[in-house]
């Protein structure tokens, strides 16, 4: 793949549920190795972009391409085979299954790979707490640990692109920091990341570039530093 | 205004129809049972449609009604008209007894708990031989015909009584739907927590509906007993031919609407009869098989009931009218 070709390319994306359209003409692209965030108020439609990529939204029009593949013709269970892993909002761990099983399921489409145990080992290095809890039912873990399971589960795929939806939601600040450190590490190992985050300060802190979504439209975009200095962003989302 | 004319027209047709049929014949019997089942489905609709609680145990109340009035006739010579209200009272009590433990159950759990309750009543009727005659069943005594004794030589009066019953329960259903209670029930159905927060006593409303539905169902049980003249525990407490069937009628027609159960009954009962007439002698099971296939086809075609056919026809009509 040439460097000029974006890894993910979204053009004129409209998406919604039933009669309600949530996204109106979204254009977004990101290149391999980027760490991009989407910020904006609650219900602005941030999650819907990720869900549209994963083909979880019923009504979608517009272009959705990933590494040269047209995503709109794919079934949602095909998406991981392309190398996209999605950590959904609210974690959605398999609560009646052990941590280990949760992680294994992340590699479901790569189940014939020989290196599953070393992949898991890598995740335990990233989140040592999961190693201690490997035999525990995921539903009995704390929120932060569940988030680790959700992220670890996605990493088992060794994805090219990692979609993170509100990973700091409902977590203690300390855990959020740990989490964001982990994201930085994951990014530094070469995984591209698209992060949706309501906590604007944190998002701009870890990502290199960002989009601001307002009522289903891209209102602003730029590098994290630019956005951080933008008075409108500061006023609207940082309360300053 | 137009609506009222349409409704009156339908009632007028329904009122004349029995006169066109032979008063002792077969079709009037089919008509009577169709009307009766429409009324039963309408009563089910109060709890199943308005409160969204899929009861599969309505046979319990139905059977209580049938047994109460018949036992009162047999043992004390009390007119079924009075027995009907006694049955209604007991039906309401039974509804209360089952509603208290099952009220907080949701969906499938509620359905299965009520199903079990119907079975409990069946077993009790089967075992309590001294009162119910046990598995042998009860025959309504053949007394000289009179309105007071609720006894007629022909089926025609029964058809009218069933029609009146259907009109009454439909009016009750519609009155509840439009009343404060109807609004409350819809709120509970769609979001029980929000309903509580805006001041609806969900427990009380659910209990009220359960009791109303139980009372009316038991009263219809008396009507049924008077038409069928003979019944046993397996008939009136039947899960398949009462509980599930009335729910099916309402659902196939369009649950939660006043005409749904009527459409459903007008479809199911005659179709069952027709299938039995056409195919039952040919090969055992064929008529039921075809009935089952039709049922599946209808559900796949219209998972939300026949009423949606009307709705979409109306929509097409009005859009054409506009353009």
């Amino acid at each position: 793949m040439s460097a000029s070709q974006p890894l993910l390319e979204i053009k004129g994306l409209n998406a919604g549920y039933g009669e309600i359209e949530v996204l109106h003409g979204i254009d977004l692209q990101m290149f391999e190795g980027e760490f991009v965030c989407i910020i904006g108020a609650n219900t602005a439609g941030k999650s819907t972009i990720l869900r549209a990529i994963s083909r979880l939204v019923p009504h979608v029009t517009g272009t959705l391409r990933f590494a040269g593949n047209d995503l709109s013709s794919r079934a949602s269970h095909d998406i991981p085979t392309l190398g996209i892993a999605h950590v959904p909002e609210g974690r959605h761990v398999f609560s009646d299954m052990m941590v280990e099983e949760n992680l294994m399921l992340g590699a479901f489409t790569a189940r014939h790979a020989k290196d599953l145990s070393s992949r898991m080992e890598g995740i335990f290095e990233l989140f040592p707490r999961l190693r201690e809890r490997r035999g525990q039912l995921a539903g009995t873990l704390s929120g932060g640990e569940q988030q680790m399971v959700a992220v670890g589960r996605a990493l088992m795929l060794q994805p090219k692109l990692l979609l993170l939806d509100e990973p700091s939601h409902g977590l203690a600040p300390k855990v959020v920091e740990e989490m964001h450190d982990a994201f930085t590490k994951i990014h530094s190992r070469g995984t591209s990341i698209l992060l949706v985050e309501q906590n604007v300060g944190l998002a701009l802190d870890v990502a290199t570039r960002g989009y601001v979504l307002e009522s289903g439209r891209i209102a602003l975009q730029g590098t994290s530093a630019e956005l951080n200095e933008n008075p409108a962003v500061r006023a609207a989302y940082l309360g300053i | 205004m137009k609506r009222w004319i349409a409704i009156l027209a339908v009632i007028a047709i329904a009122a004349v129809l029995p006169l066109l049929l032979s008063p002792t014949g077969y079709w009037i019997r089919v008509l009577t049972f169709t009307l009766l089942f429409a009324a039963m489905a309408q009563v089910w609709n109060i709890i199943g449609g308005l409160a969204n609680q899929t009861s599969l145990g309505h046979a319990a109340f139905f059977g209580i009604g049938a047994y109460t009035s018949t036992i009162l006739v047999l043992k004390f010579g009390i007119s079924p008209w009075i027995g009907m209200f006694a049955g209604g009272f007991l039906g309401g009590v039974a509804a209360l007894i089952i509603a208290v433990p099952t009220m907080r159950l949701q969906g499938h759990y509620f359905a299965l708990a009520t199903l079990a309750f119907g079975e409990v009543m069946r077993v009790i009727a089967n075992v309590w031989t001294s009162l119910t005659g046990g598995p042998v069943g009860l025959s309504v005594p053949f007394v000289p015909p009179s309105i007071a004794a609720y006894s007629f030589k022909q089926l025609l009066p029964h058809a009218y009584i069933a029609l009146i019953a259907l009109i009454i329960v439909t009016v009750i259903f519609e009155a509840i739907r439009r009343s404060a209670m109807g609004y409350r029930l819809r709120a509970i159905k769609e979001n029980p927590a929000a309903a509580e927060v805006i001041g609806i006593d969900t427990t009380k409303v659910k209990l009220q509906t359960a009791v109303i539905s139980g009372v009316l169902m038991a009263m219809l049980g008396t009507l049924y007993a008077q038409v069928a003249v003979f019944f046993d525990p397996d008939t009136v407490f039947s899960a398949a031919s009462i509980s599930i069937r009335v729910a099916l009628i309402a659902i196939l027609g369009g649950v939660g609407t006043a005409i749904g159960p009527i459409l459903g009954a007008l479809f199911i009962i005659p179709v069952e009869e027709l299938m039995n007439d056409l195919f039952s002698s040919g090969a055992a099971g064929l008529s039921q098989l075809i009935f089952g296939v039709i049922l599946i086809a209808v559900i796949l075609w219209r998972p939300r009931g026949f009423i949606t056919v009307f709705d979409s026809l109306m929509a097409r009509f009005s859009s054409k009218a506009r353009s």
Partner: protein
Amino acid sequence: MGGVYAVISIGLTLVYGVMGIVNFAQAEFLMIGMFVSWFAWAYLGLDPVLAAPLSFAVAFGIGWLVQGQLIARVLKAPSVAQIFLTVGLLIVIENGSLLLFGSQFRSVTTSYQIMSLSLGALFISVPYLIAFGMSLACGLALWWFMRTSWFGRAMRATAQNPMAAQLMGIDTALMYKIAFALGVGLTAFGGAVILPYVTVFPGVGGQFVVLMFTVVVLGGLGSVAGAVVGGLAVGVIQALSSLFFPIQLQNLILFIVFIFVLAVRPQGLVGASR
């Protein structure tokens, strides 16, 4: 009996657990399993218990088609539509088999039909014992499959969280097909192993349907472990009630316990997460 109740009910709970559909036609697959086994006995001379895998296979195939062609279409419909689709299926299967196989009661004669093991004053019926053993083996096999195989894991994942399962790359539609086919297959398997002591006829499902629901709901809808607990609980309740009450009342007592348990623990004895 509890063990056998468990196996015929596990299928039902599996279907509910994975898809959230209460399959009223489940007991009809018990009947199908019994018929397959009976034909295998009558025409191939196979012992009904050995024919159980065949019963499983036939029901699995039918279940696959039923799920793919019918039930998949109502997965998003209101739950009442789902219930009544399976009611329609019940009517079709029961009467279809009446047409195909006739109405006779059929039973098999096995060499062990009157054998029993005696433990002092207690006699343990060999056919029951075999049925129990087979049920146990089948239950363990299912447990092993669900625990260790990729498909088993994927199916559990689908049951717990279909959206997340899709994100893992699991084809949930396929999982639904497998789950339904497996569920009815297991019930058919249970049908085959009870054939040595239960006669088969097209309406035999009706004798079991309420019992199956009692087992499953008592244990907790959707929980496989719950079905086992529920099955054993029903067996125990029946046995105990026959000690203290007339045998005639055993179902009455069972249903009253059932309603009571639901009132106290709506999620069943082994509370499933759903």
